[in-house]
């Protein structure tokens, strides 16, 4: 129970961040011609930002099932790396059916918080999922039903919450380890190249992030292997 509560608390910034992101998704989905309940159903069953956004972009065209599958795999393949990474940190009871259940909630942000743990137990992970899930589904519903009711200023401020959380995870580790600094700088430089160089900017965010992260982590692993994980 202690662990569950600690998880819920760690999920607060994720839930808040999701609220603003999924709110925008809800508005967009309705503007694409989906019903509000369809938008909510998509959010409740998928729980991923980039994938859902690309998904509704495909849905407005009839019969592009194969394109849907391919784009989802490329956008979401990073989750596989995250799942493998966390599979190394779970405690003895966190296996079998529990992996199949909680694997559903392997989002970037939940992964980020969970990976800051030394050992991940089921109750912590379960607690961690509660507010993000509610935020994601609830935000979608509010956005789809009510459109733009929140003042712009508030939305703008909330939209940095997720990044603030990322910074809180990455910087302390950079302070401790020089190789992490190198890996992070490499990833950032590559990502900026994908963002700003013509040609490369056409590549989807999901693929670009995966490429930058995998190449940087592989380079760091080759140059600075860790002693004992």
């Amino acid at each position, binding site marked *: 129970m202690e662990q569950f509560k600690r998880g819920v608390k760690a999920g607060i*910034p994720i839930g*808040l961040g999701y609220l603003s992101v999924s709110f925008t998704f809800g508005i967009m989905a309705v503007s694409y011609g*989906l019903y509000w309940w*369809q938008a909510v159903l*998509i959010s409740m069953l*998928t*729980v991923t930002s980039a994938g859902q956004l690309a*998904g509704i972009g495909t*849905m407005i065209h009839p019969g592009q*099932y194969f394109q*849907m599958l391919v784009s989802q795999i490329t956008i*979401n393949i*990073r*989750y*596989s*790396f*995250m*799942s*493998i*990474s966390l*599979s190394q940190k779970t405690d003895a009871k966190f296996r079998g059916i529990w992996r*199949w259940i*909680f*694997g*559903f909630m*392997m989002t*970037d942000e939940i992964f*980020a*918080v969970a990976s800051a743990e030394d050992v991940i137990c089921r109750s912590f992970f379960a607690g961690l999922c509660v507010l993000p899930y509610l935020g994601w589904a609830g935000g979608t519903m509010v956005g789809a039903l009510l459109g733009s009711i929140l003042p*712009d*200023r508030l939305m*703008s401020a*909330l939209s*940095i919450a*997720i*990044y*603030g959380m*990322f*910074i*809180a*995870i990455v*910087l*302390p580790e950079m302070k401790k380890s020089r190789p992490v600094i190198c*890996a*992070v700088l490499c*990833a950032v430089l590559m*990502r*900026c190249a994908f*963002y700003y160089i013509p040609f490369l900017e056409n590549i989807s965010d999901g693929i670009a*992030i995966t490429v*930058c*992260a*995998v190449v*940087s*982590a*592989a380079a*760091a*692993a*080759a140059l600075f*292997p860790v002693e004992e994980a």
Partner: protein
Amino acid sequence: MNGISFWIYLLILAGSTYLIRAVPFAAVRKKIQNRFIQSFLYYIPYTVLAAMTIPAIFYATDHPLSAFFGLAVAAVLALCKQSLTVVAASACAAVFLVELFL
């Protein structure tokens, strides 16, 4: 959006996303011994988060300048080992305050 098409799309969207996440999570049960893979898995969270944060953070808020202040506040607090919630909330507050003056 009407009809069976929505449900097929939903099945592909939700199904593929779920399998991509859950299959590796459930399938990898042993401790990985290979040192390169161990190291790779140690670095991957940080490189993923870094690639997701910069430069996207500068376009998340209404103005890159407010995002810059949010980033600076978050960075200082993160280096002082503040909790995720404190860092995230302070970054939001910084953005809100800066945008009052923009």
